[in-house]
């Protein structure tokens, strides 16, 4: 009985210590835990920071690292994606996310969509939505300046109109890319499997046929949800239902 009380007191002490610590103390302590290989303790600290609304890309990035080191691949990918959602230009998070993805059991192949669409996929993924909006803004100001000059100076050369094609093409491309980034990064719901494996079924329940087995770290779009299941779409186009208990929504 004594030892139970002792354990209870120890836990209480740890909880009260974490509760009393400032955000900065928790942050530094988490880094020390991480360096010392105590990844679960580091995870605990980062989660407390997030619960305290100290929610930024760096916290999620560090949390992802700790999860990865603790062997929780699904949670690690979820954390890196959260970091990139908050700061799409966070290069370390991008690198670590790609590294974590390389450990996925399910390396879902994406069907090639043709040369033009592949180029479009590549170009529209180069920058964040903010980056494309800045490109759009620069091109728009440049096009406006050219147009105004051409209108005010009646005797200006006609080839100035042809020069307008360059910023106009950039405006169209940057607008489309920004719209795509905003749609995919913010408006689309994404999920990741956090358990060792989860059945992807034809319907929302175990009574439906199993289409595939998804493993920890598998990412997908969430198209819809029912009480206990998500309707998901994999990157290869496979659509099915998976239980909510196995999914972390990003």
């Amino acid at each position, binding site marked *: 009985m004594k030892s139970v009380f002792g354990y209870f007191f120890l836990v209480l002490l740890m909880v009260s210590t974490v509760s009393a610590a400032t*955000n*900065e103390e928790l*942050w*530094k302590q988490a*880094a020390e835990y*991480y360096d010392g290989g105590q990844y679960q303790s580091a995870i605990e600290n980062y989660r407390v920071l997030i619960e305290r*609304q*100290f*929610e*930024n*890309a*760096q*916290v999620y*990035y*560090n949390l992802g*690292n*700790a999860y*990865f*080191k603790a062997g929780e691949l699904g949670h690690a990918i979820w954390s890196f994606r959260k970091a990139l959602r*908050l*700061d799409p*230009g966070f*290069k*370390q*998070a991008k*690198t*670590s996310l*790609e*590294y*974590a993805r*390389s450990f996925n059991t399910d390396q879902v*192949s994406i*069907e090639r969509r043709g040369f033009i669409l592949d180029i479009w996929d590549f170009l529209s993924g180069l920058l964040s*939505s*903010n980056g494309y*909006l*800045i490109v759009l*803004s620069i091109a*728009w*100001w440049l*096009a*406006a*300046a050219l*147009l*105004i000059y051409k*209108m*005010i100076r*009646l005797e200006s050369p006609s080839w100035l109109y042809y020069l307008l094609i360059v910023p106009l093409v950039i405006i169209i491309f940057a607008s489309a890319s*920004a719209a795509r980034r*905003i749609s995919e990064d913010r408006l689309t719901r994404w999920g990741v499997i956090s358990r060792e494996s989860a059945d992807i079924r034809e319907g929302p329940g175990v009574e439906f046929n199993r289409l*595939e087995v998804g493993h920890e770290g598998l990412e997908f779009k969430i198209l819809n949800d029912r009480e206990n299941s998500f309707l998901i779409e994999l990157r*290869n*186009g*496979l*659509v099915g239902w998976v239980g909510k208990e196995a999914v972390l929504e990003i």
Partner: protein
Amino acid sequence: MTGRNAALFSLLSIFYLASAARALEISASVDKQEVGVGDPITLKLVISGKGGTLPEPTMPDLSAFDIYSSGRSQNISIVNGAFSSSLNMSYVLVPKKVGDQLIGPIVVRDGANMAATEPIKIKVNQPVASPSGQGQGPTPQPQTKQPGGRPQPPDKGSDFFIDQVVDKTSPYVGEQVTLTFRFYQAVNLWDQPALEWPKYNGVTVEDLTANHRYYEVVRGRRYLVTEIKRALFPISSGKIPIDSPRLTIKPDDFGVSFDPFGFFDKDLRELFKRGQPKVLTANVITLNVRSLPESGKPDNFSGAVGRYSISAAADKDSVGVDEPITLKLILSGTGNIRSVPPVKLPDLPDFRIYDSGNTESVSNTNLVISGTKTFELAIIPRTSGAYTIPAITFSYFDPSKGKYQTIATNPIRITATGEGLADVGGAPKNIIGSAVQALGYIVTDYPKNSRPVDLSRSFFFWFFQFIPAAAIIAAMVYRTRTARLLNDRRYARRVGASRRSKVLFEKAAQLKSRGETESFYGALYDAILGYVADRLDLEKSGLTIEQIRSNDTIPENIKGDLAEFLESCQNARFAPGGAAANHVDKMMAGAGELIARLETEI
């Protein structure tokens, strides 16, 4: 159906059938087409098609060969929700007759779809003399062996039996034990055998060889022996049972005698027993695993058993503070290399140390598990100075000598210079964003709790984009007005009327202030007349008061006042003795009112 429609239908049908035929494909290949009798040939079949399941092939008459299945694998891929599969099957064919033998078309059928391989011709020569002993080549030569030291079949004349043996029964913990499994087969099989390995407790397993085949004579009967070797590594001391594998076979009872007339000697009831499965088991082996000696055990011993060597290398010996050095520790040797834990580094307080991962390669050369494990570390000097990474030691137990060994790397000298780079997010600048595929370092600097600005939701961003739009609208207005001024004379005169009359009014005001009343009235007359001429696009030089009175475009209510004002100007201008001062002021004010009325009326 018209002729054109019929042709179109036929064309579509051909395309449909062609695409349906493409859905199921089969190909066959052999590793050699000229062999001796008894020399095995590997036949590989690849069946591919749409869907998750593929049909089994129908084999042609292969009575000129003994045929054994040597494995199959299936790959399933999903693209846009559509399944496609490929089934790889492998067979060993052992020719029995000299001459040209044919592997006929192998057919697969799936409903209406069918595919078949091209026939393969095999030239079978007289048997080639082979060296004795069990070679390790992939295509073993048939050999005849005496059963000395080998297990005997459970019953004299058994068609099949299996056995398993180990090379040592009293190994140390972690020492390799080589298990040999053999399947003795005197008759053909109706189907490929299914081997099920037991679940071992207390040992880890590495496969050494698969499906090594040879002939052996046991109790005067010739058997085809399939041999598989595995490496077992005990992980605890004491008695560890090695249970028997289970081999399920379906004997081809009618193929025993290889006699074409043997069929008539058979009991026809056996025809219905053909292909009945049988389960074969072997003896259980007990390993008496010895624990590692306590005497002489080094402090840093981490459980490695075998024979190892270690080396260390840094990718550079001089760096700036906060720049990483990649330190590689390479451990290689024989033993269960996969289970070797990371090599412990000595305390290096002058460095920040990050694990960059490890790689391992394992081989089974000469039936001994060996390999290399590389531990990669990023070490970063905290301050400038000359440092030495001391010798890194590693201890292992050598079972062949029965004692512990300790090996060490050479010390590595490193010089760190400079004041260090400013941290970006806690990690050295030159690591961030590098193309190296690895987990990044955590951010150690306390971050601000602020989120980056989302431009798509920023009012100021979109307001900033509105400015060029407003400027373009202004430029369009300007351009339109300028063009009209240039091209529309009437418009240009109307627009410029006020400005020009204003100039004359100013001139009149100056004349008034100088007391030049005659000139003042003249300027006032010109200003009003000029304004009317500009507004109505008339020639000012020929315009008279009478013409104004008779002009239809000037409204009646102003026409009289205008003519009267102009007459007053003329009268006052040419009146002898000049006009009174109050008349000048009255005319000046009256001109202003008149212009204002004209502005709205014409």
